[in-house]
């Protein structure tokens, strides 16, 4: 159910995300004080290539990582297998990618 290729995709995406998660938590700790507002978020991210690359990479990696992780859970706990499991895996990946990239575009496009 997890072959070598999916395993490597899972570990590679995890490795990519480790520093991004640390950065994301640092931003949250920095930004949360005094509350958040749409203007404040956009002021930080809008038109910034750096934030676009940061969160674009994050969304890409998390879509792969979460899709494979959910694949394992659905297989082990709900016994889904075969083509249905593959369709679900890549469906989750595509859905997260679409939603995630639309969020990244919304907050970073100038």
């Amino acid at each position, binding site marked *: 159910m997890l072959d070598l290729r999916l395993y490597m995709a899972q*570990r590679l995406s*995890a*490795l990519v*995300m*480790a520093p991004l*998660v*640390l950065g*994301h*938590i640092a931003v*949250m*700790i920095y930004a*949360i*004080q005094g*509350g*958040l*507002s*749409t203007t404040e*978020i*956009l002021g930080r991210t809008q038109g910034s290539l750096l934030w676009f690359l940061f969160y674009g990479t994050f*969304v890409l990696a*998390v879509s792969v990582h*979460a899709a494979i*992780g*959910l694949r394992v*859970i659905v297989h082990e706990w709900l016994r889904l297998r075969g083509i249905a499991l593959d369709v679900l895996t890549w469906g989750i990946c595509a*859905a*997260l990618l679409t*939603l*995630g990239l*639309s*969020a990244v*575009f*919304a*907050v970073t*496009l100038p």
Partner: protein
Amino acid sequence: MKQPPRSHPLWLAFVLHRVSGLALALFLPAHFWLLAQAITAPARLDGFLAFAENPLVKIAEFGLVFLLAVHMFGGLRLMALEFLPWSDRQKTLAAGAVGAALFLSGTFFLRAI
């Protein structure tokens, strides 16, 4: 509460890793959808951010930051277990991952309130 049979520290670390991963994966679509409103419906995002000032929501946010941090530190432990020379201190490392996650999420919580 009675402990389930066959439970032991590394098994609990596995359960924590799975539950945190599952919770984060289920949270992500809502997170993405809300942020995507920043341009099209900023009022809706602002409405939610005002709602997030509620102390109960702050506690939930603390929980999310903890889940994210513990999933990352726990995952780093697993990758070290797989790719670095073997260490017999896995229980200590797993406890360290929980401790580090509590520290980060606690810092977040103290800044948030």
